[in-house]
């Protein structure tokens, strides 16, 4: 399990720009917590990119995106543009997997890099006239709790659609977006892990969405989500703690 508990992309000190942007859908929209509030490039035949100046050199090993639209036939690539005060040449870090059809999100880890300038590149191998789009981005050092609940975590998928019936039973369904929800029960946390979980809960609470993946190998376990309830904390033994938190996928 990986929690992107400290998103560097959305820090107030991170400056985001794009190769091009529609007037009402600027690059800064990717820093909004609303996943549907998207950056959209202009419709062009070249590549498109989002650049982020993190303000200082940071260690990064996890990237995640939600509600992204690739250019037809292209891919999404994370690039390192150096540690200087101005961006340097781009070095590809990894090609990010396609978003999962159900969660509309993907989370990837990579060997840690030090970077101040990073780029998300939408490739356009066929030079098609198309646009790129992205709703939310996560970038930072991922947190892997000691106790990994990848085996046995409860994860329910809910459909809040509304059904109206006719006298004979025929139904009209007003569809609403499905979402996953559940509860983490992180057992056997050390004091160090507990401190990080406590800091994270204080920082994001129930207000700020974040990325997490229950099992990185399975794309459908990568979610853009928010905490929905209280943080339960149980001291099991001296220096060992159980943390329980409820969560819900953002829609």
């Amino acid at each position, binding site marked *: 399990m990986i929690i992107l508990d400290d998103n560097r992309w959305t820090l107030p000190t991170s400056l985001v720009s794009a190769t091009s942007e529609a007037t*009402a*859908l600027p690059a800064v929209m990717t820093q909004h917590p609303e996943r549907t509030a998207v950056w959209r490039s202009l419709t062009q035949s070249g590549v498109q990119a989002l650049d982020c100046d993190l303000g200082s050199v940071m260690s990064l090993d996890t990237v995640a995106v939600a509600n992204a639209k690739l250019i037809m036939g292209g891919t999404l690539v994370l690039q390192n543009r150096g540690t200087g005060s101005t961006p340097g040449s781009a070095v590809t870090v990894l090609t990010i997997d396609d978003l999962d059809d159900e969660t509309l999100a993907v989370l990837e880890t990579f060997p840690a890099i030090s970077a101040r300038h990073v780029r998300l590149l939408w490739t356009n191998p066929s030079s098609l006239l198309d646009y790129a789009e992205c709703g939310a981005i996560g970038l930072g050092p991922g947190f892997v709790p000691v106790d990994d609940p990848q085996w046995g975590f409860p994860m329910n998928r809910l459909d809040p659609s509304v059904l*109206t019936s006719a*006298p004979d039973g025929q139904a009209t*369904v007003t569809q609403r977006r499905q979402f996953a929800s559940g509860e983490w029960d992180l057992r056997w946390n050390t004091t160090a892990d507990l401190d990080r979980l406590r800091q994270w809960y204080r920082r994001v609470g129930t207000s700020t969405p974040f990325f997490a993946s229950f099992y990185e190998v399975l794309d459908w376990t990568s979610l853009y989500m928010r905490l929905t309830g209280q943080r339960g904390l149980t001291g099991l033994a001296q220096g060992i703690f159980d943390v329980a938190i409820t969560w819900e996928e953002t829609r």
Partner: protein
Amino acid sequence: MRLYPPFSVYGERIVVFQGVGTPVAAPAPTLTVDRRLYARFEALRSLVTDFRSLGIPVASSYVPNLADLLAWPVRETIALVELEPSVTLSGFLAVDSPATTYQIPCPAFEPHPIYPGGVYRPVIGVRENATDLVGVSSVLAVGATQGSYFWDAAGDMLYVHSTTDASPDTFAAYQAFVRLHLATTGIVLNRTGEAAGGVYFWPWITGQSPATDDALSDDLFAVKSTAGGTLQATNGHEFWYRVFAPDGVWNWKNKSVRLLLGGRYRGLEVPYSGYLPLATMLVDDVACDDTLASWTLKPPVGILDQSLPVTPLFESAWPNIDPNVRGQYAPIGYGRTTMTPLLVDTSGSGTYLIADPAFQSLSAVHQVTAVASDGTRTGLTLTTDYTVDLAGCTITIVNPTYAPSATGIVVDVTGSPLVTFAGIVRDILQTFCGVRNADLDVASFMQAATDAPEELSVWLTSQRTINSILATSEAEQPSLERSVLGLVRQNSAGLWQVRIRSAVQSPGTSTVELATDDFAVFTPESTLASAFASTTVFFGQDTESGAWQTTQAFDDATRYLQETTDGGNPLYTFLIDAGDAQTLAQRYQLIAGGKRHSITFTERGALLYASLVGDVAAVSFAPAPTSSGMFEAETLELSEIRKTIAPIPQISGVFRSLHGLGNKGWAWAPDDAPDDWDDCSDTERSLYGFWADDSGLIDSGDGATANLKVWA
């Protein structure tokens, strides 16, 4: 790369192109085809697969639309809300010298306390006091055009040229209208006329939403709209605090709110142009707290609450006014009438005011008559006895013999040349209510002029509300709708429409079809209490004496079978022709006098979302209270319709049958239609109404025409 031309396979036009966007799947109707045709489809499928593997988009020419969305039983409906408040502008700086163009910062994004970048709020208009400025496309054009503006979205700057060249800061009020985009779900739509690439509709609509409720409040007449209620949006992000602040620059009172409906179905998304405007309302009040922002809304039909005539007569305008006239109102007049003019100047031999020159002129003064105290009437001669000022709406007596001290004056006059329902309603809306051409469904007015050519005489001498002039059941008060079985209403886009029931279902007009499985609730109501056996029409009022002419229509079948001699509400009309009045009496008795179905319903889906009060639908429902035990495409009129958008779109209301019209699409025979049954085509026979004789025969020599008619 080769660009393939469009080609066709049995009518399905497939367009292959190097283009934009994610491939979409065309709707897949069930189709049974022979083996050879199936092979061609398979070949096409393979071709499409090949194109897509090469990265070439392949799209269907099918455009997702609201009708298909509402007909599809599984759909994601999305309601959009477009708020159009204004921002007060002050602190302009001159751009040029001598100054004509002024600039003021006007950002495209309203700062948000939490979200980076802010909320998009394009400028959609600029108003100087009560005058809307004209939008132009450059700063240079602003300098060249008085009363213009240009919003530089990229530069966040607004350029203005006032109507007088003076600084905008010298005017009482300068405001820029902006648009905020909200929705029940976050969605980017390409809104025509706004930023290329799309506009984001914030997913802030929650909880309560406004509803529209339109109903006929007076039998078949008087659409009463209570559109409004409360619109709620989230405010946990605290955006609305600053834009609602009383000490801020935002103005909300009486600003527009538009609701639109669209959505997604079968993996397809309705484009913005396909969204249906549900209602346009006005903001009455705003408030917000830690969790919610709310707008109290009201319908725009309040403009019909004002009264006519509007100009009182006092010495300030007429220094020598007759004391008996002082305080009365200058009449408003359409068509021809005989009336007693108002003595507004007693000097000389007297000047009489016939109508209000601020709003109209006279078409003709046909006759001026002096009425002596003993009742003797003397026709006067133009020039010798009186002069006429058609533009000033006055006559001046020049022969002292007929001075006010000696005689009274009566005039036979035509005021405004507009004499039909459609023309008069349109003039009242535009002249007195400020309704613009763009606010009218002009086609409906043209159709109504054809459907209701009856000549009216509408002379308003004492104050009545426009609502009352349009429709009232009050005795002695004629009304326009009752004169011609008309309706005045606003459609969901806010356009004013008129409709005449002489065309209940115009030929070629599509009708919404509803069946049992389209209803969630279907409850027939009682129908006997409203039956009546006669209708009385009052017409041709003598404006001198106040006396009415009357005509009546009787329905003996109702009288005997329902054992009632009750008369329906009398119709007080502006009609002047006895034949027109008799026709109206017959028609009203026919469609309103007998037993009528009345059904309260709630729709399962939303097929009636575009329908208005007065529209008809073809309803099939079983079981139902008919002699056959069911409705089979029964033509029913909507006498009330309520529309809500959240938490799910829902339509409810009341259907009512039009009694004698039966289960037909139906229209009165137009004047140019054959009036002889023998000369009519089968279509005309099924479409039009015909008079029958006392035996119930349309053609007295043809027994087969018995009971094909509807009144005796």
